């Protein structure tokens, strides 16, 4: 059976090559696995160019950046590549981490190999959301939360998510459906992160449906369900919306730029998450990846550059001192609001994702 399979596969390969030669400038498999290379999938300008230049000069390791814009596509890419990934380091957001881990795409981190590990802010060293079965996954880079964002010129201030459903804001709000479902569940007094629902699928379903029905009932308040942070920024700038649920980063960038925008955490609370660099399972250049991660941890300047680019707070120690006043102000929250942030967990993800995805589709289809 195995033999047969090999034959069939090599036949296919042969055919593909035959067809390919016609169009092929080269069929040679690019050398992903070179010792002097590290392949990174990440966001535009996430890693400062000056740092890359310096790193390449110091270590002789070539840094190849593949830009991405979407966690889902990144996940699909890695899954499709299977056991022979072409990437060494991927950028994962906290609430996606469990999905990557479940599919066995990430390698756990040997923190002993990172001598700069201590330069992380205390709160993020071995943060629970990056720890599974005692193993650490990922170098935390940035932290953010799901905030209530308002245009201070047109929308009145409120200390509750309830303002999103006020008749006054008809056709003027926007949110990411799946994220906001969790928040609404919390707003309704339920567990939006499903951590406590492990053995109670019925309760979870009831809570989910309650949030779903509520959002369908208030669909007239929504101007648009959005996906990308840039869409949110554009809608605020264009005054298409006055009020939104949003990740803190894109909104903070608007604040830094001087727009009449305010981010807050309402009294019902919200969720937080981490961006992290992760070493891919079976990474072709794992050693180079560790060298790179260690170097990136070395200086708060790098953390600050990431913050400026993304609008999220840095997980590195001492970044505050590098930022200017305006940037610091955009990132700071009153202490009582900071306490309202609960970080996404990695427990019971399957149930959460299934129920949230379904409910989100139902809301959109309604």
């Amino acid at each position, binding site marked *: 059976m195995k033999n047969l399979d090999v034959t069939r596969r090599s036949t296919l390969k042969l055919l593909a090559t035959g067809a390919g030669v016609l169009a*092929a400038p080269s069929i040679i498999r690019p050398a992903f696995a070179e010792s002097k290379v590290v392949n990174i999938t990440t966001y535009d300008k996430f890693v400062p160019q000056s740092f890359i230049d310096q790193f390449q000069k110091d270590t002789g390791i070539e840094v190849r950046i593949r830009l991405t814009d979407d966690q889902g596509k990144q996940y699909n890419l890695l899954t499709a590549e299977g056991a022979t990934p072409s990437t060494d380091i991927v950028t994962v957001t906290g609430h996606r981490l469990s999905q990557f881990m479940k599919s066995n795409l990430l390698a756990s981190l040997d923190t002993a190999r990172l001598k700069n590990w201590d330069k992380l802010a205390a709160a993020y060293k071995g943060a629970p959301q990056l720890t599974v079965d005692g193993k650490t996954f990922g170098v935390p880079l940035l932290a953010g939360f799901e905030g209530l964002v308002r245009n201070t010129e047109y929308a009145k201030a409120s200390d509750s998510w309830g303002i999103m459903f006020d008749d006054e804001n008809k056709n003027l709000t926007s949110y990411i459906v799946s994220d906001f479902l969790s928040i609404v569940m919390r707003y309704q007094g339920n567990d939006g992160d499903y951590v406590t629902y492990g053995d109670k699928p019925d309760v979870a379903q009831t809570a989910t449906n309650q949030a779903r029905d509520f959002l369908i009932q208030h669909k007239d308040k929504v101007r648009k369900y959005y996906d*990308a942070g840039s869409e949110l920024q554009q809608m605020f700038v264009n005054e298409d919306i006055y009020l939104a649920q949003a990740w803190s980063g894109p909104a903070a960038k608007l604040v830094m*730029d001087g727009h009449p925008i305010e981010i807050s955490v309402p009294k019902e609370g919200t969720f937080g998450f981490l961006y992290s660099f992760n070493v891919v399972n079976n990474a072709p250049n794992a050693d180079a990846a560790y060298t790179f991660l260690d170097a990136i941890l070395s200086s708060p300047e790098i953390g600050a550059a990431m913050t400026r680019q993304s609008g999220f707070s840095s997980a590195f120690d001492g970044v505050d001192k590098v930022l200017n006043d305006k940037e610091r102000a955009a990132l700071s929250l009153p202490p009582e609001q900071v306490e309202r942030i609960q970080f996404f967990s990695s427990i019971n993800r399957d149930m959460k994702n299934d129920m949230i995805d379904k409910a989100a589709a139902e809301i959109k289809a309604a």
Partner: protein
Amino acid sequence: MRTYFNDLPKTALGASYWIFAVYLVLPLTLMTAMSFKDANFIAFPIGNWTLSWYAKVVQDKQFLEASLYSIGIALATTVSATIIGVWIALLVSAENIWGKAVIFALACLPAVVPGLINAISMRIFIRTVDIPTGTFAIILAHTVHAVPFVVIMVLTRLRSMPANLVDAARDLGADPFIAFLRVTIPYLMPALFGGMIFCVLTSIDDFVRTFFLGGYQPTLPMLIFAKVQGGMSPEINAMATIVLVVTTAIGIYAEHFTRRSRS
């Protein structure tokens, strides 16, 4: 009176053309205007004008590299799609070929499969046959997408070709291959030209296939999309404007070229 009535539809038609032209061009004019806005985000009114975004784009090594990479891919795609497309069209137009309609339908398949599905299925497939992601895979996917359009254009032209042109060449001593080179290909030239322009445009514009099959080098749309993700700033408008100006220049040159070769 009579002429007045005769001119009325003509005037209406002219008006419809110009309204349509404005509909097509206006948004792009806005996009271009916005590239001069001196602010980090895009919105009207423009307020202060600046050229600094262009300065930034022109000095952007990434932009230049992505442009060259995109052009390279587009050229390779064009060449391979034209060869394969003409080949398929010849087969479909040949006499005595069994299952012509089926072959034609299958040849057109990639044109009617939505891009996303196309990209994903292609990604799964090249993994099955062990082709690595990267330049070659991108060209392959772009070629698959462009081939149906070449086939359709070439086939239309082939159908209008007098059958005895090839017979005449054969009669004068050309074997089938020479007759193809010296008679069929020149006759197909307008269709090939149209097909090539189409290939270049779809390839340069393609994002979703490139993402799924691409390696580490970003193409132009990938670069723009990734930049957009970081926030819509006039920098992107400046990039788009440069792309637009260059492609328009190429288009006008192409038109000039065809006009000259026709007269």
